[in-house]
């Protein structure tokens, strides 16, 4: 897992969706979609951030539990797009 991408995404999630939350409570395996942190609007905001930040383009089907339910999955998705 690219630590740089991981920390960027974690910071974004904490700032945008979990203000006031302890950073250590959010791990790379915390369920984001099934855990109710990312609803459809938040998922789209995160997609827009990731696309702009890493200059990649995600597909609609990738905005799903299978690809974006944890920070680890999101990092993997970003890395696969950058390759």
């Amino acid at each position, binding site marked *: 897992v690219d630590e740089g991408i991981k920390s960027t995404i974690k910071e974004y999630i904490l700032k945008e*969706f979990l203000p006031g939350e302890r950073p250590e409570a959010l791990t790379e395996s915390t369920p984001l979609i099934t855990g*109710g*942190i990312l609803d459809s609007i938040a998922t*789209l905001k995160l997609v827009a951030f990731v696309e702009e930040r890493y200059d990649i383009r995600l597909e609609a*089907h990738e905005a799903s539990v299978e690809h974006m339910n944890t920070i680890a999955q999101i990092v993997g998705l970003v890395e696969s797009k950058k390759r």
Partner: protein
Amino acid sequence: MRAKHVIRVLIVAAQLLLFLFVIERRFQVESPAFVRLIRLTLAGFLVHAVLPRRFRLPFFLLLSIAGIAVVLGPKEAAWLAAVGFLLVGICHLPIRMAARVSLLVLVGAFLAFLRARPASAPLSAAIWPILGSMFMFRLVVYLYDIRHEQKPVPVAQRLSYFFLLPNVCFPLFPVVDYQGFVRTYYDSDEHRIYQKGAEWMFRGLVHLVLYRLVYYHFMIPADEVVDAGTLGRFLVSNYLLYLRISGQFHIIAGMLCLFGFNLPRTNNLYLLASSFSDYWRRINIYWKDFMVKVFYFPAFFRLRSLAATPRLLAATAYVFVVTWLLHSYQWFWIRGSFPVTGPDIVFWALLGFFVAANSLREAKVGRARALAGRARTLGGSFRHAARILGMFVLVCLLWSLWTSASLGAWLSLWPFGEEGWTRGAWLVAGLLAVALLAGTVAGYLSGRIRGLGIGGDNLAFGRSAWVTGLSLLLIVIVGHRSVYAHFGSTAADTIYSLRKPRLSRGDIALLQRGYYENLLGGDRMGSQLMELYMKQPADWDGDPNVMYVPRNDFLARELKPLVEFTAKRFPVKINRWGMQDRDYEKEKPEGTFRFAILGTSYVVGLGVPGGENFESLLENRLNAEMTPKTGLRYEILNMGVGGYGAVQRLMAMEEKAFAFGVDAVIFTVHETDPQGLKDLSDAARTGVPIPYPPLAEMVSKAGVDAGTPEAVAEKRLKPAGMEITGWIYRRAAEECRARGVIPFWFFLPTTSRDHAWSADHDRMRALAEEAGFEILDMADAYGGLDTRTLWLGDWDQHLNAEGHRLMAARLFEALAANERFASRTKNERGAGAKPAERGGAPRNGG
């Protein structure tokens, strides 16, 4: 380890056994078919849980198909499986995806063609709703997901996705996400998944019993909304009827957990939604996920060229238009028609607007989230409770709109005067204040006291099993007559009433008026009326174009002379005078005592073989038993017409019965007459002249005229019901007296098991006696009987053959005991009337 597995499986099985006991012996919350399915589920669960993992999916598939055979029959199961395999097979043809989709659309169109003409299709009509619910949405999700599938999925799991075991009893099955279905299969501890299934089934049971409590005891028909109090009661109870859907969805998802499919919640405390977006996320979650995945995200990603706000608005609008269309599409597969109604459009448009506005706000401002529950301050708890309460009120309002058959019907809820708005307003305000206070306290405490929850998805196996098992056991105990009888008469009566399925007062009225065929409210799919309608054989009522000839006056229609048709299973012949009866000469034969019976569909008596309706049986018996004593022959001319109101019966009597030289008129009335003034309201609304000026004046005085919406008109006329009834009785009796005809008031109660009409009956009888009617009162005719045994079917509460025999016997007794009738027949004989030459022979009738 093995022993632990067996023990835990047996613990879950014990809870299922209690569940089965409750739905079979205590609260029959669903159909007998559902009981059979649960028996199969219990047996299947025990086998499935001990099978090696690799055999479980094929076993589940076979069990699901066996479930279809148990509920619908083996032939239907074979048809469903064949059509299903074909559809899934097309999804995997080695051709381009676009070609596969085109082929599926073609096959779907062919099936839709057959669905619209069920009588001509080779498939049983019972298959369509189930076939539709298995494939109409799941094929869409499946095709969407297999394009991006990365891991191999066993064929049995693919097929199981469509032939899900509970589906056969629940045509209103939630859309299940295919990826989620695959991903969650045994994705955590198997015993915890099984236990979650048992727990959810129990929760579903609680929802269904609560639904019944609301449906039987709190829900009032829309036309009984007369003030703020009744309006509040109607709005809240109308929304709470959704408990039925959420209960069914809990049971469905719970049953699937028993076989390792660890599906997420279907609904999540939707009554506690604090905004429209929150509401959309909490209610029918599977539908929301389906919409987001297949429509919202793809639309949003395609609209990259737009700025964020219009992009979000356009994608949201698209989702709600599709949701609206797909609800009608779903109804098409369930019932075969594609309804487009004003309330449906307005409801989805409004909900879409509010959700879009909320989404925009959330996109800009964000919303509070937390990884773990956070304690709120008292002020924060108050604001949150106020938001929940506000949402609840708004959703109640929107829901009432959605469930109305028309915009006019919804508007008819509101027009009550200043006095109406104040009556009950304090009660409503008081209840809202109590709810706000309770919500504030609960919200404040919930973040501070840990371990308060007794339920929840993360309960350990043991604790969940204890809570669920003991709760089920408690229901078993409390649901026993010897226990609840000690709770006082009100509580005992209430518990007793919840045990069996029946229709509410409002639904009985709709059923009796035949309105259930045109159910248009947005809740139509979850309503009990719809379920009854689904049981009704195709063409049950016969073709009205064949049966009736329209009239342009107040009578509106009459039976078409000399036609033959089939209705309610039996062939029917209409005689030359437009009667469902044998032929009669117009002129009364000498030595004959002639009756005319005026009435509704109860009198017409379709649904029994010719000559077996109570009118024919009575005529036969009079000729068999009275003729030898009086020397007179007896004729009863059946002048009943389905759907005739009391004024139409009066008009038919004056126009038709007297022309046949009758000696007596049997004027049939029902307890519903004073409330069912549809003949008057229809005439006033459509500009058809009402033939009786005093009645026309009463209608006008009630504020009903051309252009008054149907629901408003009937509501306005209701208060004048008894006054109108009294006038009809006086007029009928006077007209009879003027011609020397004996007027009989024949009270024939409908077979609905709602006996709240006794006060109306007493007033009606008093009015009839004052008017000078002879009384043939059958109010207690069904005493001690379960009236369901007298119905033609669950969907048709008219009298069956046994009911007609009962009614004929009771009428004969009442006539034989009537002094005026006895005296008249004695006089007729004394006057030298000759005994009939043809009398006495039983007839075949209509």
